[in-house]
């Protein structure tokens, strides 16, 4: 299952709620305001980092750029993808769950 999160973790509890429900085979993709969660050195970034050992985490590049977050600010191990990569992730997983 591919899980997408589109909310800022500094405003909404959605990221935490998503991470609490990951099962084997899950991957997480941060999009829209959700990409703020990938910022290294923040509380959300630490949550993401501690998740990485068990689940891959991706972040949408165009949404990072829109928000002025450079690659060196992103938590190490989080993989940046473009929209084509987003499509690829959707295809590679059996289903998609959007955490709205």
């Amino acid at each position, binding site marked *: 299952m591919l899980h997408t999160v*589109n909310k800022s973790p500094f405003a909404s509890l959605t990221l935490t709620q998503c991470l609490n429900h990951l099962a084997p085979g899950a991957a997480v993709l941060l999009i829209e305001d959700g990409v703020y969660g990938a910022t290294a050195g923040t509380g959300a970034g630490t949550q993401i980092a501690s998740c990485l050992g068990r689940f891959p985490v991706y972040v949408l590049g165009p949404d990072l750029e829109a928000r002025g977050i450079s690659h060196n600010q992103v938590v190490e191990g989080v993989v940046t993808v473009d929209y084509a990569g*987003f499509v690829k992730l959707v295809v590679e997983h059996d289903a998609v769950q*959007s955490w*709205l």
Partner: protein
Amino acid sequence: MKIGILVNEGPYTHQASDSAYQFAVAALKVGHGVHRVFFYHDGVYNGSSLTDPPRDDRQIADRWSKLAAQHEIDLVVCVAAALRRGIRDQNLAPGFRISGLGQLVESGIQADRLVVFGD
């Protein structure tokens, strides 16, 4: 692969419609089919023919119409959600049609993947 898309939010206010559009374009580019885009909740506002955003901004309704025409994509606006929000045939943009929620469930059944964009 056949992909269905659900859009839950209106244009401009939330990024959902933008993300759905960019995703659809990317999927089509690599050869996947976009089976249907279903517009629910405030998503029905995407189908308004009366929007007139600033010239230098993206034309959201128009670009959905064009994408649908180019790739024969079925753009379905939920009838119940649309009536509640003032979208009817008289102010429906080209390429959109108004139909029931069954079209969303059918999209879930027939498409290989269903991707939801919302608030």
